[in-house]
C-alpha cells in the first residue's frame, strides 16, 4: 500500500478514526448506513494490515537484536568466534520465527492484557529462541522490548557489533526508550506503553470469531452491527484496570470488526496461517544454528 498522502498517514490513527466513525454511525439519524460502514471497514482492514506489517518488522528487528545478544552470550561462553552474515535462507527463518512469535502472541489469547506487567511474561513461553538452560531474567527484558525497537541502524549481523557487544546505549526514537546493553544483558531504562492495542487486536480476534459466528441473528441488516457493538461494550466493561486506555477499548472494537467482516479478513487469516507454518518449520533450524556456535 503506497502512502502517497499529503498528510502523514499513520495506520494506527486511521484505525482509531475508522472505529470512531463506526461508533458514531450508531447514533446517526436514519440508522446505520450499510454502505458507508462497509467502506470504513475496508479502510480499517487496510490500516490493520499495514499496522501488523509494521509490527512484524519491528518485532523482527527486535528478534534479530535479541538473537545477536544470545549469540554473544554463547560465544563468550564457548569461544570468541566471528559470525558470518546470515544468508537469505536464515533470514527467512528468522522472519518466520518472528512471525511465529507473533502468531503465538495471537494464540496466547491475551486474556488479561489489562495487567500490564504480567502480559509480557505470559508471552515468554512462546519465545522461539529460548533455551531451557537460559536464565529467565533476560526474557523479561526481552518481552518489554517487544514494543521498543532497537535503534534502527543497528545491524545485528554485523561482525563488529557481535565482537564488541560490551556496552551500548540505545535510544529508540519512536518510543523514547533508553536501553543499555551490557555484556549481552539488556537493561530497559524505561518501558513504553504495552502494546495492548496490537496484542489485544490479535488474540480477541481469534477468540471471538467463534462467538460472533455463533450469534448470527436471523433478523437482517443493521442488527448485526448493533449486536457487534453491544458485545464490544460488554467487553470494554470487563477491563476495570484504570490504566486501560482508549486504545484498549478501540482494540476490542477492532477485534469485533475483525470477526465481523471475515470475508474481508480472509487474506489476513491466511497470512497468519502461513506464518505459523513457516515458524514451526523455521524454529528448529534456527536453534540448531545457535547451538552450532
Amino acid at each position: 500500500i503506497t502512502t502517497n498522502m499529503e498528510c502523514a498517514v499513520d495506520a494506527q490513527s486511521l484505525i482509531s478514526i475508522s472505529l470512531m466513525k463506526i461508533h458514531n454511525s450508531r447514533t446517526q439519524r436514519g440508522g446505520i448506513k450499510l454502505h458507508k460502514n462497509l467502506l470504513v471497514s475496508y479502510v480499517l482492514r487496510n490500516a490493520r494490515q499495514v499496522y501488523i506489517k509494521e509490527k512484524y518488522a519491528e518485532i523482527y528487528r527486535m528478534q534479530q537484536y535479541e538473537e545477536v545478544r544470545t549469540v554473544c552470550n554463547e560465544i563468550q561462553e564457548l569461544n570468541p568466534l566471528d559470525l558470518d552474515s546470515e544468508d537469505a535462507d536464515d533470514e527467512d527463518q528468522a522472519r518466520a520465527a518472528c512471525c511465529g512469535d507473533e502468531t503465538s502472541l495471537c494464540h496466547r489469547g491475551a486474556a488479561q492484557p489489562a495487567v500490564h506487567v504480567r502480559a509480557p511474561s505470559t508471552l515468554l513461553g512462546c519465545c522461539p529462541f529460548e533455551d531451557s538452560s537460559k536464565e529467565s531474567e533476560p526474557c523479561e527484558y526481552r518481552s518489554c522490548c517487544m514494543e521498543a525497537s532497537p535503534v534502527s541502524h543497528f545491524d545485528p549481523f554485523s561482525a563488529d557489533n557481535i565482537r564488541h557487544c560490551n556496552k551500548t546505549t540505545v535510544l529508540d526514537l519512536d518510543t523514547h526508550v533508553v536501553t543499555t546493553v551490557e555484556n549481552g544483558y539488556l537493561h530497559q531504562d524505561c518501558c513504553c506503553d504495552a502494546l495492548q492495542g496490537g496484542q489485544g487486536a490479535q488474540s480477541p480476534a481469534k477468540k471471538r470469531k467463534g462467538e460472533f459466528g455463533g450469534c448470527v441473528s436471523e433478523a437482517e441488516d443493521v442488527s448485526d452491527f448493533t449486536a457487534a457493538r453491544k458485545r464490544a461494550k460488554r467487553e470494554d466493561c470487563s477491563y476495570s484496570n484504570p490504566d486501560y486506555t482508549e486504545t484498549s477499548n478501540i482494540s476490542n472494537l477492532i477485534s469485533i470488526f475483525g470477526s465481523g467482516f471475515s470475508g474481508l479478513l480472509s487474506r489476513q487469516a491466511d497470512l497468519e496461517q502461513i506464518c505459523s507454518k513457516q515458524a514451526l518449520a523455521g524454529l528448529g533450524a534456527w536453534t540448531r544454528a545457535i547451538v552450532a556456535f
Partner: protein
Amino acid sequence: MKCFSRYLPYLFRPPSTILSSTCHTEADIISTVEFNSSGELLATGDKGGRVVVFQREQESKSQPQRRGEYNVYSTFQSHEPEFDYLKSLEIEEKINKIKWLPQQNAAYFLLSTNDKTVKLWKISERDKRPEGYNLKDEDGRIKDPSTITSLRVPVLQPMDLMVEATARRVFSNAHTYHINSISVNSDLQTFISTDDLRVNLWNLEITDRSFNIVDIKPANMEELTEVITSAEFHPQQCHTFAYSSSKGSIRLCDMRQAALCDKHCKYFEEPEDPSTRSFFSEIISSISDVKFSHNGRYLMTRDYLTVKVWDLQMENKPLETYQVHDYLRGKLCSLYENDCIFDKFECVWNGSDSVIMTGSYNNFFRMFDRNTKRDVTLEASRENSKPRAILKPRKVCVGGKRRKDEISVDSLDFSKKILHTTWHPHENIIAVAATNNLYIFQDKVN
C-alpha cells in the same frame, strides 16, 4: 464549447428559509433535482421531505429573446419522518430521488422516494370549480333543506389556477436497507427501487406486491463485501437494467433470462491500477451514480475522482475516463477524516449525449465535451451573479505558482459541494443544486 451564461440570477430557496446564504436549516438542503421528459418541469427534493416543482414559462412572442423562466409551480410535503418501532430506527424524510413519468394526460406524475418508501404523486391543475350546489352554500355549510325552494344545476366557474399534488400510490415495506435509486421502465408500467442489497420491481398500479429481481445479500452478513449503489433501466429496452456496486463494477441484467437476475449478462469493470493503491482505494472506486446515455449505447459512472463512459459492447475497460478533481488524490486522508470522501456525486448526460456534467467542491461543477475532449470548470455562486453574465471558467491550481484567477487546492471550500445536477432533455439548460440553493443556467442565445 458553448459558453453558459446565466440568463438571470435565479436563486431558489424554499419559502421557509432565512434569506442569508450562510444561514440555512438542514431541512432546506436540496437532495435531488430532475427535469421531466419534456423539460417543461423541474422538480427538486430536499432533506425536509418536501418537493418543489418549477414550470417553465411559455415563451412570449413579444420578447422572443427572453427564454422561458422557471417559476414555482407546486410545493408539497412528500415524506414525513417516521419511526420504525421494531428496530428502534428513525426513518429520514429526506428525498433521495425523484423520477418523472412521461406525460400521458393533462396531469403530471412523479415518483419520489426516501430511504424506505416510494410514492407516486399526481400534480394536476384546477382552474375551475363547481358552484351553485343545492344542499350547501358557497362556504360549504349545509343548508337547511326546508329553506330550499328551487333546484339548480351546479356550473363550473373559472377560478384562480390551483396546482394540487395528491399521493396516488404508496409503495412501502419492501426495503430493509436504504433505498438509493428508483427508475421508471420504458414500458411505463413498471419501475424498480434499489437499496444496498436488493432491487425490487413494481407495477405502478400495484402497491401491495413487488418482485425481488436482484439480491446480493450473503447468507452470512459477515461475508459482505459489496453493496449496490445505483440502478437504472435501459432507456429503450424494457427488459434491461444496470446496477453499480461499491466495488466499482457495473452489471447489466436481462429480465427475460430468469426471474431472479442475480446472474448478470454483462459485467463492466476496470482492473485497479496497483501503483495507485492506498488505504482508500476501495472508497474512491465505489460508484456513486450510473446513467444510461439517451441513445442507450453507453453507460456513464461516477466514482469519487473520475467519470467514466462505458460502451455497452466493451466490458473490460471504459471507453473514456475523465478526471474530475484529481488534485484531491493527495488529500484523501483529510477527506476521509471530514467524511467528504463519502460524498456521492451524480453525473448527467446532455440531450445529445455529447457533453457530460458532474459536480465537485467549492460549488464547482465540471463539463466534459466528449467530441472535442475539452472540459470546463464553472462555479455556482451568488458572487458571480449578474444577469446575462457569462460564467467564467474556473481553474484549480495544483502546482506551486498560483495565477491570478486560480484557486489553490487548500483554499477549496469542501462544505460547498455540488452533488446533484440535471440537464434539460433537449436544450442547453442545466439545474445545479448547491446546498440549499438552486441555480438554473442557460446557454447563450445567439
